[in-house]
């Protein structure tokens, strides 16, 4: 055997053939100073991507926060992410909710559209179809609030682009399991 054609690093040779996929992790952590840094630092140090991240305290009595992370990786990398998140002392529970057909995912976005005339009317009409709320208006602009699965928001943002889209702010993905089960 020779090294010809071998990748340049000894560390990624075993799993190079696997395809990448997007995954969403729900992580229940102790709400304490620095806990977000532990999670984010883990991703940075091990070279994992973060596509979106949301975090807030969800149970004040139990001092727990829920972090939802959307990431991308091969099945092997995703398994490592789950194991490494679980290894943090501050972590109570980790779940890869992508795998779960019962998972519900929602995101909220604020979308600012500037324009006048027919484009302005069309923007408002499309917003109604997407059940986006107008939360601010001037004679030259709207701010829409839209909630839904990330794909729906992507689609809305895409439609607004030719109609005068100037700014988007998104929360990142939230997830929860349908039915009686809990994290």
């Amino acid at each position: 055997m020779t090294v010809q054609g071998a990748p340049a690093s000894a560390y990624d040779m075993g799993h190079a053939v696997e395809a990448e996929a997007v995954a969403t992790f729900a992580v229940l952590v102790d709400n304490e100073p620095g806990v977000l840094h532990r999670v984010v630092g883990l991703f940075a140090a091990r070279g994992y991507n973060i596509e979106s991240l949301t975090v807030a305290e969800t149970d004040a009595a139990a001092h727990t926060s829920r972090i939802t992370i959307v990431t991308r990786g091969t099945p092997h990398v995703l398994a490592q992410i789950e194991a490494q998140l679980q290894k943090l002392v501050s972590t109570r529970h980790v779940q890869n909710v992508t795998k779960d057909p019962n998972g519900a995912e929602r995101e909220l976005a604020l979308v600012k559209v500037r324009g006048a005339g027919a484009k302005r009317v069309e923007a408002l009409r499309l917003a109604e179809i997407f059940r986006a709320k107008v939360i601010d208006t001037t004679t030259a602009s709207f701010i829409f609030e839209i909630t839904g699965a990330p794909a729906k928001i992507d689609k809305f943002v895409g439609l607004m682009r030719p109609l005068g889209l100037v700014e988007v702010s998104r929360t990142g993905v939230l997830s929860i399991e349908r039915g009686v089960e809990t994290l």
Partner: protein
Amino acid sequence: MTAHSTIQAAKATAAAPPPEMMTGAQMVVRALVDQGVTDLFGYPGGAVLPIYDALFHEPRLRHVLARHEQGATHAAEGYARSTGKPGVVVVTSGPGATNAVTGIVDALMDSIPLIVITGQVPTHLIGTDAFQECDTVGITRSCTKHNYLVKDVADLPHVLHEAFAIATTGRPGPVVIDIPKDVQFASAPYVGPAQARAIHVYRPGVEGDGALIAAAARLIAGARRPLFYTGGGVINAGPAASAALRRLAALTGAPVTSTLMGLGAFAADDPAWLGMVGMHGTYEANNAMHDCDVMIAVGARFDDRVTGRLNAFSPGSKKIHIDIDPSSIGKIVPIDVGIVGDAAKVLEALIAACQSLVLDRSRLAPWWKAIDAWRARDCLRYRPSASIIKPQYAIQRLYELTKGRDVYITTEVGQHQMWAAQFYRFQEPNRWMTSGGLGTMGYGLPAAVGVQIAHPGSLVIDIAGDASVQMTMQEMSTAIQYDLPIKIFILNNEWMGMVRQWQQLLHGERYSHSYSASMPDFVKLAQAYGAVGLRAERPDELDDKIEEMIDTPLPVIFDCRVERAENCFPMIPSGKAHNEMILGEEAGDVGAAIGAAGRGLV
């Protein structure tokens, strides 16, 4: 409630002593005593003075004053590795904490339990760029198993006791507790280990899954070419794990190899021992890894120094991996049976499971025949010399002359470390202290200080290189202060030997900044510290000088002048497979043996 139970409850309330009020500094000292700590390593400074004041009043704790905070952490690592107890370090804020970082990372990489208590500026000054302020928890977050900044003295006893639990259970590791100076002065009720509340939900699994253990036993029973690949986790799991490994190996008749960190878990004089595996492992161990059909990995983590080229790593084997850390299983290499648990408990369960199966040892005869053929290559052979001390010969003589004694070996990092691993034969666990994962030059001398503190009557030898040992040489002063008769056995070739070797083999013999053109006179240096300096320059004087070193009741620096251009073989070049080793006598082909891709690897 019955009258009886009412009386009992009243009695219990009356019997419970009122909680003892004390300062944060006193809590630190009391918690250490309550956790069974007897020795700690540190260096005082402004932000830990209250703790040092409390130490002044505590005769049950012996504090060892290092000469640099890095030395304190390595000493604590040596102490921990040789005793199985956690090592404890106390350093001040700012530079005290940053100097300790190297030892903390070293402990994380090698899974060594450390409690590192760092002073911090008072809480109202945090974030103001105060004198000797640094973001200690920020800096150490990625290099500790866990860390704490304690802002309320009432939390301190709970944090201290939880820190010991986290450092010593599951996969061990370093825990940093950063305590601002005002918290050290503030008072609150102290809480002992039994009453302390858990701050985190932390429950590492130690019992292996029964069905997986049964599956592993069936794989072992059906194997024709089985191999145990053991690591530092077996040492960490305590002497019971080493004992269980020896029984299981005897029961199955399978050969055993080990990582650098696992040396001593299996006796080197056992016929089933193949020597170390990996980049500088033996020919028989690496070929056995490549050709085995069932690999039983115990407390080892498939490090790149062990696996070589991953897509050629042990291609035909079913792999069983026993590890306390779930994230280690399948991290590098796909695993067929992954068992999460404590090595001792899982190995015991595996013995029980194997005993209920029929193990036909005769099936392994062809495997042992292949192993004997590899052994016949005598891969550690080197060209002897009558005029120059060969470094391998120096380690061999050191081993022969210290064999059978109560001896502990530490090392620095480099060629000498690999020669020590190859030629010093360890029979028991906890006798070998080396920096495996991080590869920290300067580890061995302070680690020897820590080992000697834990084992005052034992022979403690740091097998060192001339470059590494100068990184923490100042800890000789510590050894003198505490009457620690450590022996610093320097294989002095005037080069950073491993760097020189790689430059020779991989960089066209361009020896860029790897030669130490100015070397201290190590004999005089020893004398300057108040230690004894010895020098050996010829093979015929080596034995007498080593005997003299062993018999000297003081610390010794032994300047062993060795062959300057010796290379460490066997060697799996980076990017090559286990069965593509270079042996010493083939050294002439070395340049051609390493491909272009291999040069890019570390």
